[in-house]
């Protein structure tokens, strides 16, 4: 017994190091599963507070640019509105609304690592919950992963764990959107069968079969495609519409029917 204690005392630094290493590896490996840690993410009040403080200063430097992009978006939406044949009275049937939308500001953005997260300044108190979709005025951005009271982390599409349903615009051919961590402005679309007729420059939008994003949200254009080694599916590189290095104002989309869809899918899965 004495010897064991002596041994522990002799190697206490090594043991301490090994313990700490084990803890950190535990966290890291656990984070390779779909949802990473609930507790250790930047959506907490300390880091969220510091990031939003720094953003509130740095956001002044590009107010001009930001204004311009918002004006452009408004212009596009106005054009759509004016050119759509409207019924005599503009009434919105609240029972027919499927999606609600709210704005937020990105306070932290990352795109250099293999698993990138964006932190936004809206959280539980504002009704943001896990698995809501996040977009910008240009296109898709990611999915809400963790929330705290006032902040939320968004799993960016530039994340090796991200997988989003996407399709060719105006067709029903859909596949899943992944990222191979090589370039921050190019993502990959998988599982498009070879019989589909592709052209470089074709637009890719979100597909309708996910309960997170509505259909037809722009993602990007085809930059390059070739067949996989099995020759059954295409490997498609997509150039994103979004400039992932410059994320300021974002929109959070929540599907009102998400829970119902989720429950139904769960029930179906359980029956099988």
């Amino acid at each position, binding site marked *: 017994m004495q010897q064991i204690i002596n041994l522990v005392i002799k190697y206490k630094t090594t043991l301490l190091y090994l313990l700490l*290493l084990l803890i950190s*590896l*535990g966290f890291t490996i656990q984070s390779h599963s779909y949802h990473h840690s609930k507790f250790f993410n*930047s959506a907490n009040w300390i*880091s969220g507070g510091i990031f939003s403080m720094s953003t509130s200063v740095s956001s002044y430097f590009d107010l001009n640019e930001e204004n311009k992009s918002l004006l452009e978006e408004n212009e596009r939406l106005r054009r759509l509105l004016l050119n759509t044949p409207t019924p005599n009275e503009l009434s919105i049937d609240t029972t027919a609304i499927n999606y609600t939308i709210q704005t937020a500001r990105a306070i932290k953005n990352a795109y250099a690592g293999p698993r990138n997260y964006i932190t936004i300044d809206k959280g539980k108190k504002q009704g943001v919950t896990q698995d809501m979709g996040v977009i910008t005025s240009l296109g898709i951005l990611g999915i809400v992963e963790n929330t705290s009271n006032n902040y939320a982390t968004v799993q960016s599409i530039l994340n090796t764990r991200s997988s989003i349903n996407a399709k060719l615009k105006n067709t029903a051919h859909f596949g899943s959107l992944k990222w191979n961590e090589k370039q921050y402005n190019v993502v990959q679309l998988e599982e498009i069968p070879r019989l589909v007729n592709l052209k470089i420059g074709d637009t890719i939008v979100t597909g309708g079969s996910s309960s997170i994003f509505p259909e037809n949200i722009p993602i990007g254009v085809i930059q390059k495609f070739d067949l996989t080694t099995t020759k059954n599916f295409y490997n498609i590189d997509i150039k994103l519409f979004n400039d992932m290095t410059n994320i300021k104002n974002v929109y959070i989309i929540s599907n009102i029917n998400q829970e119902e869809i989720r429950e139904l899918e769960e029930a179906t899965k359980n029956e099988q």
Partner: protein
Amino acid sequence: MNNNYYFINTIRFVLLALIQVLVFNKLNFFGFINPMVYILFLYWYPIKENRAAFIGVSFFLGFVVDFFSDTMALNAAATGTIAYLRPAIMRFVFGVNYEFQSFRLSNTTKAQQITFLALLVIVHHMIFFSLEIFSFANLLLILKKIVATTGATLLLCLLFGSLFSVNKE
């Protein structure tokens, strides 16, 4: 004297962590290079301190940086490792005389200081990027990131080192 040590190191800890997460994590040179200047904390940390405390503090510093950058415990693992290996690295670089009471980092040659810092940075980055990417299929990507980021970190650390050099008493 002793109080002063704690004070200086606490300030260093906070400032380096803040500079890391607010400035250098947003740099993204060429889209992927984010220098990790917080390693300077381990370079500057007093030599004759309790080793266990040093490893604990370094691990915690890495953890704080992880907290802000959503990288789980990658920085913590890498920083803890170089904290553990630091005496071995110092013995390798400075020879046995670093154990003497009169040894000071500022009394060593420039080449020795740079080698010491470079070894810390290289070991840190090797562990960090291997764990971050975690696949041998991307060995080339790991190597590219290690080489590029090591260069950037080393350059910035040397610049910072000469800006805020430990006062020669």
